[in-house]
């Protein structure tokens, strides 16, 4: 049975090979020209439009420029903000006030020192005041 099957298969295989069609080589050149003409519009379209790419390819292409530029912008912004920061207001006469208050609270404070301290706090020049009369 198997031998019969192999025999039949062999004869069928021979018949398939004998009847196989093969392209005429002389027609292939003409066909190639025909195909080249048919694909010409598609190729022309490819010349003028950028071919579609994946987003990561686009990002990769721009990365060489965008990363240094981004870093530069960040550093420049930070430097600008640092330079333009508002100066902290100096506590006017703070130290003088502390000294003055300390002097006023001291048990043995001379009146001249107190007067000087008050002048410093209220800003009145000592020289412009009229001399005080002792009681």
């Amino acid at each position, binding site marked *: 049975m198997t031998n019969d099957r192999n025999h039949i298969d062999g004869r*069928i295989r021979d*018949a398939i090979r004998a009847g196989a069609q093969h392209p*005429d080589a002389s027609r292939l050149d003409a066909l190639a020209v025909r*195909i080249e003409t*048919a*694909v010409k519009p*598609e190729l022309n379209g490819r010349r003028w439009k950028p071919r579609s790419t994946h987003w990561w390819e686009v990002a990769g292409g721009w990365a060489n420029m965008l990363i240094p530029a981004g870093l530069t912008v960040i550093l420049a912004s930070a430097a600008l903000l640092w330079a333009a920061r508002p100066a902290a207001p100096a506590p006017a006469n703070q130290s003088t006030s502390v000294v003055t208050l300390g002097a006023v609270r001291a048990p043995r404070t001379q009146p001249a020192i107190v007067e000087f301290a008050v002048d410093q706090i209220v800003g009145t020049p000592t020289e412009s005041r009229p001399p005080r009369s002792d009681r």
Partner: protein
Amino acid sequence: MEAFRATGSQRQPVRLTLYDDSAASRERELIERARSGDREAFGELIRAHLGDAVRLAMRVVHDEHDAEDVAQDAFLLALRRLDTFDTRRAFRPWLLRIVVNRAIDFAESRRIRSAELLSPDARDASALPDAKAQHADLVAHVQRVLAGLPPRQRLVIQLSDIDGASISDIAELTGSAQATVRWHLHMGRRALRAALSPLFGENA
């Protein structure tokens, strides 16, 4: 992938060969140029693979003119899909798979099943006067039965019998699993035996 076995000087088998490195890099270069719209590069690709494309299409559609139309469609489709092709892989199997699919679509749309299974009259072929005429008659019958098979079965049998392709070659070419190829081969041979065994005066 192993090259298909040659079956004669005039009759070249469909090739699914490996490339050497220089040929592969040359092909990659052509593909990149074709992607940018280079006509000369795509023309070179066409001429390199056209013979195999037509030969393969003829295995399915059984008509040279139809096969040429199929090959033309396949090249156009390949160009449109060229951006999706992975250039690390071989171009020929990718292209030929497109040809196979186009040919099968064509065959199914045309319903190329013109041949009926062997008619009872064909059993009288053994009564032909000489062996040559008998053989010619057998070939004609086989071709008719073959043409009546589903396109994929027909292709698998021909790639195996005419081109000497291995199961793995056919699987790659058709984009099918090897088990599927074996199944098509088995069913195709079975159908051929069933239709033709009366001609041999034997039961399959």
